[in-house]
């Protein structure tokens, strides 16, 4: 019953008029900035961080958390509407979400992603409140070998993600990892493939790459299409998800929530895999896997739920250990420090109002997002009716503002343009950008964990086999790869006869 009294404390904190207001403003502003194409949660929070400085610690963190959820949701919205993901998680949403938008079902995609996120948020809040502590110690057992194996499994997800040639998908994954190695080497500080450019020293920014090869390349492709390229072709279906669509989405949402919750609490940024894992799982379970990639609602519902659940449970290492599992949480640590709070295991005992207030505000924030966003769905969908000759300059302006604002650096805009052209050529050659992006995202994690594992094991490869978790993960990966390679070869034949 401790839990109930703690939650009561949390809700009494989070429900104060001031904190409710802050959560609302946070969600709203986060959504508005996050919806800028290519601007994901990290960029949004860094941009908006200063506005929270004048507020008391609990209020400031509640508002920041609101900005985070808002930005996450806003990022999904731009992924669905204009096919520009702002962070790794929305790459998956962009795949089928944008395909749905093209079929006139943008509203259903936006609606199901709001509903899925809300359900995931509710479950994840309960998980955090009830299990945060015992799970923390369990998650700490995960070491570099396990993360390496987990990320290798992520690469297999990337193969599943592609619906064309497996060989081409593998090429794109390798290219993605290769791109991720550009920049200063973590272990030696040596500049890798930067050609002396300071701008490349920190590597390529995800948003720059994603916006280029995904969003802008799509614009270039649409420009070819003459009269046919308006985003919504033909008639629009019902605005919100139909009853049948919701029924089909329930199970994916729940499975996604589970996957996201588990992966999110790993302190080594496991959350990044959640949407990809969910997509893979749903594609394997689906009755019609061939619809995936062409606007299957399950492929939006599951990954969106996984993404949100993971985003939320990634607060666990932060709140219980004071350790940030990803870039967003690292910014939260900075915000706590500016507020005079030392992040660490003592936060829970020394500032229970902060700890439980934040947990309660997570649920409130998710509710607010639903309330803010469902009515806006209609507005966003109407936006797509703007003729493409005006829509695409607008997309370009918003995107360029977004990219410029990430670092206030015009070079980023130039790089985005270059990636756009490269991405366009890749599409022409029959490559898909999604596996490249996933390879890019996992590249760092794979390399760093491999090198760390090798340093710690003194160069013994057997460390992966001796460690049960990594062994199981690697075996599952190999199995998944075998399972995916065969049907996708078959699917390709099918596709050849179905299309054109």
């Amino acid at each position, binding site marked *: 019953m401790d839990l109930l009294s703690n939650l009561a404390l949390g809700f009494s904190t989070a429900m104060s008029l001031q904190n409710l207001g802050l959560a609302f403003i946070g969600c709203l502003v986060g959504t508005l900035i996050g919806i800028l194409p290519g601007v994901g949660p990290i960029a949004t*929070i*860094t941009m908006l*961080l*200063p506005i929270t*400085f004048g507020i008391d610690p609990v209020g400031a963190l509640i508002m920041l958390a609101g900005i985070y959820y808002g930005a996450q949701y806003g990022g999904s919205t731009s992924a669905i509407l204009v096919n520009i993901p702002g962070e790794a998680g929305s790459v998956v949403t962009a795949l089928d979400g944008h395909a749905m938008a093209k079929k006139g079902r943008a509203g259903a995609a936006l609606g199901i992603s709001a509903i899925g996120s809300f359900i995931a948020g509710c479950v994840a809040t309960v998980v955090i409140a009830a299990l945060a502590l015992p799970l923390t110690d369990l998650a*700490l*057992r*995960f*070491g*570099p070998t396990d993360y390496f194996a987990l990320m290798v499994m992520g690469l297999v997800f990337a193969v599943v993600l592609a619906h064309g040639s497996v060989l081409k998908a593998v090429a794109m994954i390798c290219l993605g990892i290769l791109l991720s190695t550009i920049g*200063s080497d*973590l*272990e*030696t*500080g*040596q*500049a890798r493939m930067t050609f*002396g450019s*300071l*701008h490349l*020293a*920190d590597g390529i920014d995800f948003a720059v790459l994603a916006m280029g090869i995904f969003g802008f390349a799509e614009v270039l492709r649409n420009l070819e299409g003459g009269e046919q390229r308006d985003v919504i072709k033909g008639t629009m279906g019902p605005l919100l998800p139909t009853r049948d669509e919701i029924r089909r989405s329930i199970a994916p949402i729940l499975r996604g929530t589970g996957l996201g919750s588990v992966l999110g609490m790993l*302190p*080594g940024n496991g959350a990044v895999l959640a949407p990809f894992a969910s997509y893979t799982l749903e594609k394997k379970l689906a009755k019609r896997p061939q619809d995936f990639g062409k606007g299957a609602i399950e492929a939006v519902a599951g990954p969106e739920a996984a993404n949100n659940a993971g985003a939320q449970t990634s607060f666990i*290492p932060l709140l219980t*250990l*004071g*350790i*940030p*599992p990803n870039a967003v*949480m*690292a*910014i*939260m*640590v*900075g*915000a706590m*420090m*500016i507020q*005079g*709070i*030392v*992040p*660490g*295991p*003592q936060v829970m005992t020394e500032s229970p109002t902060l700890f439980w207030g934040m947990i309660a505000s997570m649920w409130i924030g998710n509710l607010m997002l639903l309330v803010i966003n469902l009515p806006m769905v209609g507005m966003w969908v109407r936006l797509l009716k703007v003729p493409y000759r005006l829509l695409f300059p607008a997309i370009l302006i918003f995107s360029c503002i977004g990219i410029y604002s990430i*670092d*206030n650096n015009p070079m980023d805009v130039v790089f985005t343009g270059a990636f756009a052209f490269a991405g366009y050529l890749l599409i022409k050659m029959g490559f898909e950008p999604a596996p490249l992006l996933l390879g890019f995202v996992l590249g760092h994690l794979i390399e*760093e964990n491999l090198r*760390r594992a090798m*340093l*710690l094991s003194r160069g013994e490869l057997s460390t992966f086999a001796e460690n049960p978790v990594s062994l199981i993960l690697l075996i599952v990966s190999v199995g998944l790869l075998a399972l995916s390679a065969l049907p996708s070869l078959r699917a390709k034949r099918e596709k050849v006869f179905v299309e054109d």
Partner: protein
Amino acid sequence: MKLNRRAFGLMAAAVMTALPAMAAAEFPERNITLVVPFPPGGGNDAMARIIGDAMTRVIGANVVVENKAGAGGVVGTQSVQNAKPDGYTLLLGHSGTMGINPHVYPAATYHPTKDFTPVGLISEIPMALVVNKDLPAQDVAGLIALAKEKPGELSYASSGVGTGSHMAAELFAHDAGIEIAHIPYRGSGPAMTDLLGGRIDFLFGVIPSSHAQVTAGKARALAVTGTKRSPTMPEVPTMQEASVEGYEAALIYGLLAPVGTPDEVVTKINGALNIVLADPTLQEKLAVDGSVPRPGTPEDHSKALDSDLEKWGALIRDAKIEIN
């Protein structure tokens, strides 16, 4: 606390009314930009915002923090180096960007006192030597003995190559004559994760967050790296007390302006900085990151920068730390 603040306000007012008598009567007539060469949300950013906010109230102009991140701080640092030397562009510099980077990154071609005008020290941040809770070593001597028994087997985590946590550990290895394995991480959080998970033997971390893990019983602190014990963990000895003679590792933080900034302007900013550093509320805020205020003159800062550059340079040469 209230009384203190009022007294502090009066003092500030008195100093500020005295200052305009000097030549820089008009400075500042517009906003002052304080460049942080790291992204928002880190320890540097937090310090800059705390100091900037306090100085705004004293100096008579807004001190606006601007983050110019990139290449381990080199990008932002160079942008200040090339800014107009009028006192309106300041840099938050620390041992990492000013004392270590010039030895580590070929791109960092600047010299802390030849290419910049030191304005004043803000603080220094000593660290704590924290070990995994299951490590048999009970004190620093025990740790050294363990390392000598198994050369190269003990591993330490750092928050990256050339960071304070890396240098402090290398200095320890150098001074104690031991061989240890360096495992770099991206930031202090992941480093601490593997220490808590028992895969890393020890690390050097900032005192407050290390203290948080120590009090929770998840790790043990063997020593602090400053010359004095830390008020946060008074029971923990300094490295010198714990048998490593002459060892000191603390990161210094300070404000710098481009070279050629007029003396009057520097004096004025230095005056304002020292006023805010005397404020107990500000000291409390800085303490979150383990900062110990070090008010002083621009000359003090200049000397500290030179000796910092020399100290880390000598270590990097002597210990043949492999960078590049």
